[in-house]
């Protein structure tokens, strides 16, 4: 970040990937060589992307810090800023304020088994940690991934899934909500599939992200499997503006999600006022 926390660093879009009908992924590189060289982040940290003339919105950096050729952001078209971002293509300029917020405690997770449970665009923040762990594979135990979407069409990162399914050191499970012609994987809601996979909570942490309703039932399923609140990590969405804990809208009680989050354990969330 520059000394002015509101001043974006300019970046160039290298590649745009159409993930789903509503999600595009942008691979960007920072223009200033010094800023690019100094740029460092932890998996789970977020950034604000600028669509000049429209505004900013917050997205997780979903590429891992082990692969610094570009920074990757996946953007679901929902409002004005995201609609404008969806019009951009390779070579276009974009503003980036990053990294913001905290990261997954990847150091504390070393030596443990990891269960990733991602739903829809909620896979983006898991991807950065998953790839970071795969790039530091020997530091972590058994890694299980359960990734679900409404249908195969809604599944982001589909081009990576064959490799993830093939890897011996990653136990990948895919699921969709309803039967779909040609689909060879699970059909069923994420929490139910998770119960079928039946991961052991022994020396394990679960990392989940997705729509609020999915997180709610996934946490219940994890509890049923014996996971304690402090073994469950998630990352929150909030409306954010400044990204540095000042503008005052993303707080849950004393905790500012843009700065103290977005990564929390379920145990931490339970301590905060009930205002998700």
């Amino acid at each position, binding site marked *: 970040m520059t000394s002015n926390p509101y001043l974006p660093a300019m970046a160039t879009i290298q590649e745009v990937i159409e993930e789903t009908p509503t999600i595009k992924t942008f691979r960007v590189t920072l223009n200033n060589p010094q800023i690019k060289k100094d740029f460092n982040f932890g998996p789970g940290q977020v950034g604000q992307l600028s669509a000049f003339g429209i505004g900013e919105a917050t997205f997780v950096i979903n590429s891992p810090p082990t692969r610094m050729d570009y920074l990757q952001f996946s953007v679901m078209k929902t409002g004005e800023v995201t609609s404008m971002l969806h019009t951009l293509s390779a070579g276009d*300029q974009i503003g980036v304020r990053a990294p913001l917020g905290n990261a997954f405690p990847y150091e504390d997770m070393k030596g443990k088994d990891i269960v990733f449970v991602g739903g829809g665009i909620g896979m983006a923040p898991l991807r950065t940690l998953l790839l970071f762990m795969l790039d530091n594979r020997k530091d972590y135990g058994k890694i299980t991934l359960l990734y679900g979407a409404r249908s195969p069409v809604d599944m982001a990162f589909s081009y990576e899934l064959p490799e993830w399914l093939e890897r011996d050191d990653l136990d990948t499970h895919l699921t969709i909500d309803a039967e779909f012609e040609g689909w060879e994987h699970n059909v069923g809601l994420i929490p139910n599939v998770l119960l079928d996979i039946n991961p052991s909570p022994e020396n394990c942490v679960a990392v989940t992200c997705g729509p609020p309703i999915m997180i709610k039932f996934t946490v219940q399923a994890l509890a049923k499997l014996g996971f304690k609140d402090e073994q469950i990590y998630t990352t929150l969405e909030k409306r954010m503006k400044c990204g540095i804990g000042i503008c005052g809208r993303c707080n849950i009680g004393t905790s500012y999600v843009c700065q103290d989050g977005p990564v929390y354990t379920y145990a931490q969330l339970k301590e905060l006022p009930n205002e998700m």
Partner: protein
Amino acid sequence: MAQTKFIKKESLSAWLEELGQAHTVLAPRFEGDSIIFRPYDSEKGVFIDREATAPPKKAIFPQSETLLEYSQIKDMENLTKIAIDVKETIPTTTYVVFGGRPCDARGFTMFDRVYLDGDQVDVYYKARRENTCFITLTCEKGETTCFCNAVGSGPSDPDGSDLLITPVTDGYYIECVSTKGEGLLASSLLTDGSSMEGEATKYKQAADASMNEAPDFTGSPEKLLAVFDNGPFWEEMSDKCISCGACTYLCPTCYCFNITDEANGLKGTRIRSWDNCMSSMFTSEASGHNPRPAKANRLKNRVGHKFSYYPDIHGGVISCCGCGRCIKSCPVGVDIREMVKSAIAFVDPTAKEVPAEEPKAAPTEKPAPKETSVKAENTSAKAKKNKKSKKPASKKKGAK
């Protein structure tokens, strides 16, 4: 011993003119029925006999300010290729705010902890803060809505000011509070003030004595958390509220803002504007989810922020300066003092009847807050704080 001066009442306008040569002087004057801080105009004079309708917050935190200017530059060889030039616009104007009250100046100390003392310094606020001097007037007496004495302040509190002036016979006794204030004392219109100290002290004591009995806010951080989940309590508190946001715009300590872009062809600005936590849009998320959908949720956060969360984060300091403007200007008579006092006095009637059975009453929901839960909430808040201080250290290092 801090420097003291005296200025004759009839020299005041000449002094403000002098200060106006190097700075923009903001002083309160009547506009319609309101007393508003405006650039000083000798013909229009100043009105300092009452607290101004709106605080001088704009001097340091304008209602709307430009953060960045951008321009898109088309490549004439390839018109689809557009470079973007972004410039920061750090403010340079210097201000003297004359005739604010101690509560107004204290409001900015609430900003300071958030805008200057956090992990990231807000460079725009910092520039304005450094470029602004406050010449604060000791209050003659408290109004019925004043409660600065309940939040650790008082009618002659110099906290946040650069000079404090106190009415004495034929003029004002001037105390220098900061090194910035010293720079305003060079005028030949000012004479030595030491002989006026006794009279000024008496004036201040009379002002202190005129204050209403201070409402007792002891325990507000824990008690507000304890009633957090009590829907009926907050519905009752917010029943009258119409979410108009007058309280936020007139509050010297309300510092929340929005950031938006304004495009004008290939150029544009990114501006920051006061925002209003009483608006439903304040927290509305892209997904359509809103964590504070009802006015009860929003009022709870407004009161909670000032009397619970902020003190919890900032060493017990209540983020309210007791100016009473939110009470005076509320069109429907919502009184923040009463809300906090109600939370402190609240005893859950069901908890009283069957305290042991209480948790079983609502197994799916969080248990309703009750007297006995106060201690537990308190310790959890502390545990949280400890964690807070550890967390950024371990995570942000790698991220720097």
